[in-house]
């Protein structure tokens, strides 16, 4: 589904991602871990098409399409979803209306009719219930004044509405309280299928207790320095990063 080949990328001429290759198949869950500043969010932004970040060489093929030639909107419509580490606040734009716009953008792409606010409300209520979100978040403005955890929940709510093929969740677990982490993880698990894939960027084993990864990769200074199965995450939890990042 996703094939990253020797990707180099950065911002303002500074290289941050320094040759990453990664292959992800349908149905798989990959966890990316690594020290602060190692380039995890940068990789995610490159995948989602943030205009400030530039790939200088390498390839990203998603479902047979050259992702680097598509803009963020096209990537999203093609089925790539990014759950941001720091979701931006948009005062004045109603949360439910934003979600409906995003949902309808897909409908339009598929040549289907747009969903009116009433019908959408049904869908929205169902998904919010699944994530244990109170109704009041419909009326609020997009992330405006949301607490850290509320913003993260709202990201997963978007994922639930958009049903992407590939989701990258960038530290969705940080900021969630213990109960919220469980509810959100269960929600994410419900959204999983044989046809979609998940990349979890995280610092903590706790998330991986709920959403079991098939592969764990350690990113350090812009490179994947070690890959393994879920046992690797447990090792990292007990030993820290030093032993992998200084291995050579």
């Amino acid at each position: 589904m996703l094939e990253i080949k020797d990707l180099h990328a950065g911002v303002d001429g500074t290289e941050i991602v320094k040759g990453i290759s990664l292959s992800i198949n349908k149905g798989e869950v990959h966890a990316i871990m690594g020290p602060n500043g190692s380039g995890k969010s940068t990789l995610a932004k490159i995948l989602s098409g943030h205009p400030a970040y530039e790939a200088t060489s390498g390839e990203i093929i998603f479902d047979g399409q050259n992702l680097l030639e598509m803009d963020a909107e096209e990537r999203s419509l093609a089925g790539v979803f990014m759950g941001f580490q720091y979701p931006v606040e948009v005062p004045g734009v109603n949360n439910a209306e934003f979600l409906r716009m995003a949902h309808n953008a897909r409908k339009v792409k598929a040549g289907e009719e747009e969903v009116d606010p009433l019908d959408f409300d049904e869908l929205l209520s169902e998904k919010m219930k699944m994530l244990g979100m109170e109704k009041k978040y419909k009326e609020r403005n997009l992330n405006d004044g949301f607490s850290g955890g509320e913003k993260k929940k709202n990201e997963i709510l978007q994922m639930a509405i958009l049903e992407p093929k590939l989701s990258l969740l960038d530290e969705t677990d940080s900021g969630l309280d213990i109960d919220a982490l469980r509810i959100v993880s269960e929600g994410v698990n419900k959204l999983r299928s044989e046809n979609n894939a998940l990349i979890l960027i995280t610092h903590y084993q706790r998330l991986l207790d709920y959403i079991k990864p098939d592969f764990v990769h350690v990113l350090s200074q812009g490179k994947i320095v070690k890959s393994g199965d879920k046992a690797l995450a447990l090792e990292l939890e007990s030993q820290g990063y030093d032993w992998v990042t200084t291995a050579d």
Partner: protein
Amino acid sequence: MSDEQNSVSDLLEDNQYKYGFTTDVESDTFAKGLNEDVVRAISKKKNEPEFMLNFRLKAFEKWKTMTEPAWPNVHYPPIDFQDISYYSEPKKKKVLESLDEVDPEVMRTFEKLGIPLDEQKKLANVAVDAVFDSVSVATTHKKKLMEQGIIFCPISEALQDYPELVEEYLGTVVPVGDNYYAALNSAVFTDGSFVYIPPDTISPMEISTYFRINTEETGQFERTLIICAENSYVSYLEGCTAPQFDTNQLHAAVVELVTLDNAEIKYSTVQNWYAGDKETGKGGIYNFVTKRGKCAGENSKISWTQVETGSAITWKYPSCILQGDNSSGEFYSVALTNGHMQADTGTKMIHIGKNTRSSIISKGISADVSSNSYRGQVKIGKNATNARNYSQCDSMLVGDKSSAHTFPYIETANSSVQVEHEAATSKISEDQLFYFESRGISRENAIEAVISGFCKDVFKQLPMEFAVEAQKLLTLKLEDSVG
């Protein structure tokens, strides 16, 4: 530029100034220059009653002693008032008996603007007065309004048919010497709209004027007078466009509103005059307008809603004089500046009567290298016991080269009053737009959503079709400026 072949939607896609076409009509234009003879000639051309000529002459005398205001936060080279023609009318004009007599070219122009004047095609529930350069060319729905005693006609016609009404009210809200441009307008205005709503009458439709400047180097000086008698109501819409010329054109209108006891006037404007070249700032309209309403009667209400998206320079402060006890004034404004535009706009709320209330909601959006100033005055007189004002002035910056300024002035001479002022500045950021795009929402829809969110409190005051149009206009103007 032969935009004549292009459809309006083509122009929209080009993202050019949508209304930048000129119409080939023979027009009767005065030679450039201004002196007493020109003032007399205008009055004569219009066959005006004596009081009108005297009004003009008095204004002209005043104007000669005045100087252009220097306090607005706008900058432009001095205007040569002798280099402007003060009168232009489409030729072939006597008193028009029906729309058949209007030059078909002029009619097509208005159609292109989306204002069909044909009896068959005319907007179902809006009466339209179309002003082309200085002259009113067609007023629709007149008969239907007349059945209820509502007068809606060009002011030139009102001067012939209802001179006593015009004489009673003209200049009572904006006196001839009020300010430099108002004095100029009072001396040389050529046409505009006149509305009279008799007592106990709710206008059965929205009343609308469409202004268009067509001829290069003519000034457009229209004069609008709306009187709403006891217990009556009218909603009035005003739209403005102009073609693209390299030179600056002057537009100095005066609008006066009067409400008697329990009457209400709702006045909405979508202003999209040509703003000049986006890159160089060349050309564009100087929009120096005086708009003022007087709540003369008790419990009366005047509400101004404006969406200002065009003009090279805007200098405009739709105001309310709250004279009647319990009267109220409202000002809702969205002012967008982009390219090299400069706007200094706001309102004045003058509280004279007891229990008078006013509210001001101003939303300024500045993009590119433009400058956008809000200037508002709230003045509460010594007899205005229990007067209240609420003001909210928000600015949104797009990019980092534009500027926003807020100049609130509050003067109170009565201690029982309550005045609140809030202000905030925000920004459309690249990260916000990326957030929308990463959810599959187009940049255009993202801008529209952010802007309409910002302008919500103002847009909801506009009649539906106007709100939709206004929203599209803002989005169109900002698409290039963001990012």
